[in-house]
């Protein structure tokens, strides 16, 4: 009986390891290509590189302008996350505990933003941003991303606040605490965990966003990492597979490192985003 169980476990792990290898196979293959020369890639895409040419990664980093692109991405993502977390928390608090007459209409307007796809607003948004002088600007991108991310943020914080017992708020009010005090002393200390999850998710959305940067940023020096990677294949490097693979490596590795460090929070956040 015991031996049978061991054999079962072995087979199970065997299948899982094989599936895991199959899952990462495409990524591993591209990682190897980044170290190969173009002739090596053409000779046999599956073989190991003849030498570990780290200088190719460095060259891709420089020629692909990834240094400035990383700074651009951060310059967009950080304000976006701050705006979404602050505005969502305030709005959700107001909707749940703010005793606002007509709050349901505000909620309905926000729900609308949650069910409408980005494509529904993109053309008009492009022209409105142009009228406001926010095209071709990292700030413009930040504002647009924050606005688009806001409905989800409000919804997420709201569903958390709905779980806070009303008695707790009432007790604080009876103690003479006003709206701002209740928010600062009672609600915010409880809201740290969901706010952090929201921040993580929003950072990922902002970092991975493609459509908004594609239409908003025209100046090559303003490109985000994701947009810069996209333009690697369109331009001079179309047939330079070393360069494209190195670009993939340069952009994918940091995401994977952050993901593995924050795995629990990431998975909880992304799935909660779907379920809640």
């Amino acid at each position, binding site marked *: 009986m015991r031996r049978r169980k061991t054999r079962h476990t072995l087979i199970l792990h065997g299948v*899982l390891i094989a599936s895991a290898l199959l899952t990462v196979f495409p990524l591993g293959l591209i990682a190897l290509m980044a170290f190969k020369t173009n002739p090596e890639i053409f000779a046999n895409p599956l073989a190991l590189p003849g030498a570990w040419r780290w200088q190719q990664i460095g060259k891709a980093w420089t020629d692909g302008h990834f240094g400035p692109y990383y700074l651009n991405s951060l310059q967009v993502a950080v304000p976006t996350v701050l705006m979404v977390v602050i505005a969502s928390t305030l709005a959700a608090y*107001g909707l749940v505990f703010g005793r606002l007459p007509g709050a349901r209409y505000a909620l309905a307007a926000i729900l609308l933003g949650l069910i409408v796809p980005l494509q*529904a607003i*993109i053309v008009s948004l492009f022209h409105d941003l142009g009228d406001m002088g926010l095209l071709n600007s990292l700030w413009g991108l930040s504002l647009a991303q*924050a606005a688009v991310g806001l409905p989800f943020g409000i919804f997420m914080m709201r569903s958390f606040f709905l779980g806070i017992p009303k008695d707790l708020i009432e007790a604080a009010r009876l103690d003479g605490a006003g709206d701002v005090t209740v928010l600062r002393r009672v609600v915010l200390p409880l809201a740290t965990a969901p706010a952090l999850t929201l921040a993580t998710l929003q950072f990922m959305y902002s970092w991975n966003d*493609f*459509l908004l940067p594609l239409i908003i940023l025209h100046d090559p020096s303003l490109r985000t990492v994701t947009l810069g*990677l996209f333009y690697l294949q369109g331009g001079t490097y179309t047939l330079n597979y070393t360069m494209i693979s190195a670009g993939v490596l340069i952009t994918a590795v940091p995401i994977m490192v952050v993901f*593995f460090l924050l795995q629990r929070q990431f998975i909880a956040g992304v*799935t909660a985003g779907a379920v809640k």
Partner: protein
Amino acid sequence: MTERLDQQSASAARRRGGGRPLGTAIRYLIFLGPAALLYVPFVLKPLIETFGLSLFAWNGVSAERTFVGLANYARALGDPIFWISLRNNLYWVVTSIVLPMATGLVIAVLLSAVRRGQRIYAGIFFTPVVLNLIIVGLVWGIIYNPLIGPLNRLLRAVGLGSLAIGWLGDRYAATPAIMVAGAWTFFGFCAVIFLQGLRTLDREQIEAATIDGAGPFRRFRKIIVPALSDQVTLLIVMSIIGSFKVFDIVYVMTKGGPDHASEVIATYMYWQSFMNGSLGYGAALAVMLTAVVAGASLAMMALRERD
């Protein structure tokens, strides 16, 4: 005594600031003001404008817009590329329901049976979910590449050289090829959702069925699948929404080509609006896309409310 304490803490709160209840207008301003400042100009206004724009003919440059009523919508009905795009979106729906969900379910059942390493495995299967679709598109673009792609090498090596084609340049193969890459980014998500469902599963029920002589397939069909019906519904609705919104991965891999063969509504809308200078028509496509996605999203919310 308690009363005095209450009074004390009340006045203390007041001294700390924020003690007074705020007036309604001020509350609105503080709590909803920042959200409105973002939401109204950058989401609500363009949304309304898109509906309006769909009733006009406009090239995006000239000052003149011509009111055409519902002509842009009628144009879609007679546009073969619109129907190709819509058909491809429906292919996406079917494929993303079948392929990643089935794979994810099998992986989840396997994962739920191991005691060690569950988190590490889950992390690996989840990696494609967090990568952006430009990375995914470039990676799979190389896999499918007719010159250096390992897929064709593999096919030739096992004697299926006749199947080795330029996947993304072929009008029949392009959409399925992109969809496989899309499935790669979704199955890990499905697995994690299913795994959460399986955690709530009654162990004793399975053991009882095992003792009663039910084999693994019968147990799977009779106990596990019914227990996961909530997760299945959720993932199906998500697949529908995602399949109609799909843009990035198609745009980076084929831009909707060759000759619009892998076009979906979102890429076709982008092409009409930003490349072809038909903004009114693009807006009409956006409105139709919105109707489908909004309907599916409302269904999803109704499902959540039910729980």
